[in-house]
């Protein structure tokens, strides 16, 4: 014990952890005593994220809303804590999965013309899987414990399922990419073919499950679009794969094949992004997050870029290669903006208390499940308030 510790006037010299437990008098044994404290307040403590908030509608908007009561316009839900790594992973993982699928298709088509595409697809799949793992580990609050994800096999957790899929996909796509990286015996190449087929099979859930991952949350806009999100993400992954090989100027029939694959997926993605709005619009307050703030801006940008890319694709056939490269770059940026837009919209949606209340009052909470099971929808409604949240005569006051 140094002098500062014994002098009560210099107590503040001890690093403050906000517990105010004097180690000479008390032991830290409580359930929360292991909680690490670096900063007591402010952004580092995760209590406020002002930089992101500045983009979106002010909280006053929630207070002034005529929709109904709330607790001072405060959010009911916690905002997703994920940083940029997660939407970036959605993009990279989708790209890797769809590349594995495209690569398997190219080797099915066979012939000399597709050999370049097959090789590049395997490289992108393996590289994407490795990058995905890095992004996911980086985003963890305790990166050293990333292997804890594989402690259990839990079908109720899309994140757990996704980790298993990504693990298998990483191993298989790595094995498939080996001959492209090192010169090996023929047997290695044969086994690489089998591994590539396997990685294509796992690549399919890898591009789609991220939509389920978002839908399996309490965030209103993600939960409300649970039927569209997985399909949208699947096709967005396909678009990004097609676009990457456009940009990379893959020669021959393989390049054309990748281009057609991406072009059809592009049409599907544009249609699905409309469907996303339609599914959310069942409750207008929920759809708002897709139109306003940062999420709305990114989603509009994504649609604009995809549309521009499709227009470039359909231009008359001159300067073919450069045109493909331009369209590929636009589409890649578009699919990237889509992932970031969907995540940003989810954040805004979690912050808006009325986006939580309104779907539930409209019978889209648990009441929806009861209806599906054939039972009478039963909304918990206190006396004096009907199930939609409107007051009846006897509300509040004494009879």
């Amino acid at each position, binding site marked *: 014990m140094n002098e500062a510790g014994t002098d009560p006037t210099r107590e503040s010299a001890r690093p403050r*952890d*906000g*517990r105010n437990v004097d180690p000479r008098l008390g032991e830290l044994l409580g*359930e*929360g005593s292991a*909680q*690490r404290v670096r900063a*007591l*307040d402010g952004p580092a403590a*995760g*209590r406020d994220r002002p930089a992101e908030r500045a983009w979106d509608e002010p909280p006053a908007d929630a207070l002034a809303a005529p929709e*109904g009561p*709330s*607790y*001072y316009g405060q*959010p009911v*839900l*916690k905002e*997703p*804590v*994920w940083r940029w790594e997660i939407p970036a992973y959605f993009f990279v993982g989708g790209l890797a999965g*769809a590349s594995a699928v*495209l690569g398997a298709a190219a080797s*099915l088509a066979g012939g000399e013309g*597709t050999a370049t595409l097959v090789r590049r697809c395997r490289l992108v799949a393996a590289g994407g899987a490795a990058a995905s793992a890095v992004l996911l580990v980086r985003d963890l*609050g*305790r990166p050293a414990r990333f292997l*804890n994800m594989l402690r259990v096999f839990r079908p*109720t*957790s*899309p*994140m757990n399922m996704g*980790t298993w899929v990504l693990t298998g996909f990483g191993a298989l796509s790595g094995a498939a990419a080996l001959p492209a990286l090192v010169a090996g015996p023929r047997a290695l190449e044969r086994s690489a073919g089998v591994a590539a087929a396997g990685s294509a099979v796992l690549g*399919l859930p890898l591009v*789609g499950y991220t*939509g*389920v991952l978002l*839908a*399996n*949350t*309490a965030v209103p806009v993600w939960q409300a679009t649970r039927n569209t*999100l*997985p399909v949208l*993400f*699947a096709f967005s*992954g*396909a678009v990004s794969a097609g676009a990457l090989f456009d940009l990379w100027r893959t020669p021959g029939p393989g390049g054309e094949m990748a281009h057609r*694959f991406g072009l059809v997926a592009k049409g599907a993605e544009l249609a699905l992004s409309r469907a996303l709005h339609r599914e959310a619009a069942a409750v207008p307050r929920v759809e708002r997050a897709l139109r306003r703030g940062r999420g709305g801006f990114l989603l509009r940008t994504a649609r604009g870029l995809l549309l521009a890319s499709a227009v470039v694709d359909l231009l008359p056939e001159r300067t073919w290669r450069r045109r493909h490269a331009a369209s590929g770059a636009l589409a890649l940026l578009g699919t990237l903006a889509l992932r970031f837009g969907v995540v940003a919209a989810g954040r805004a949606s979690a912050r808006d*208390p009325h986006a*939580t*209340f309104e779907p*539930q*009052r409209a019978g889209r*909470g*648990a*009441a929806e499940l*009861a209806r599906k099971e054939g039972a009478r929808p039963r909304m*918990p409604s*206190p*006396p004096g308030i009907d199930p939609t949240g409107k007051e009846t005569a006897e509300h509040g006051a004494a009879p």
Partner: protein
Amino acid sequence: MQEMGFFTDTTLCIGCKACEVACKQWNQLPDDGFSLTGMSYDNTGALGASTWRHVAFVERTEPLPGQGSPRDGIEAGAGAFAELRPLGQPAPTSLLHDVAPTHLADVPAALGPSQQALGKFSWLMMSDVCKHCERAGCLEACPTGAILRTEFGSVYIQPDVCNGCGYCVSACPFGVVDRREDDGRAWKCTLCYDRLEGGMVPACAKACPTASIQFGPLEDLRERARTRVEQLRSRGVGGAHLYGESAQSQPGTEGLHAFFLLCDRPEVYGLPPDPVVPTAKIVASWRAMATGVLSLAALALGAVLSARRA
């Protein structure tokens, strides 16, 4: 082991925050930095990684029987508090009775705007906590198995297993679980697992001076809560109802192990009116994914055919 839980009777809460302090102190949680929210008397704000009890202060522009200012009593005479008059007693026992000046009651003075507003005003206070849902969204979403159900029926996050993926934060329909950024892990109320093991009552319930927070076997609590609602309704608090006391009243969570007695819509307290565990709806989403990726496979096969023809 018997299932234990909380019954929080908000009509008894006086907003003293003894529960918040007791929780912080017992669990040795860091303080919140002593900042003011600037939005209300509530300077805690919300439940969080280091705040496992949170007292909400609701200011309502609606009267509530049993709450009022002495001025109301002067205006309305003893009738203002008639509903709460103890049985067998002729008049209210509050300070009202002592001050009731008859000359004022005869000639009521005109009320100013703020006095008029005060007459149509009431406080609602609620000590919020993790609900320890019968079907818990956080538990089902946790990819590491760090969240488990204890022998007391509570939902517990093991800090030595949690890897801070943040999925439970988004999966909780009540916004309870939070990740502390400088710690990296998710935290929430443990129902004082260490105290329960030692046969003690959770710190917040122990510290509550008005028995607003009641702890005990769930069956007993439910019984007690129903009796209390009847009592309040007979005294004129028409809006009194239980929030999440059973699977029937809250099918989305199959009932809460920490349920509440509220006097207004749940939204007023910042609680979702019909919360649902996200996993309950997820089968449709998996099905949509299957459709999506199969059509993607079909698209790939189409590309194969087009390449062969070319």
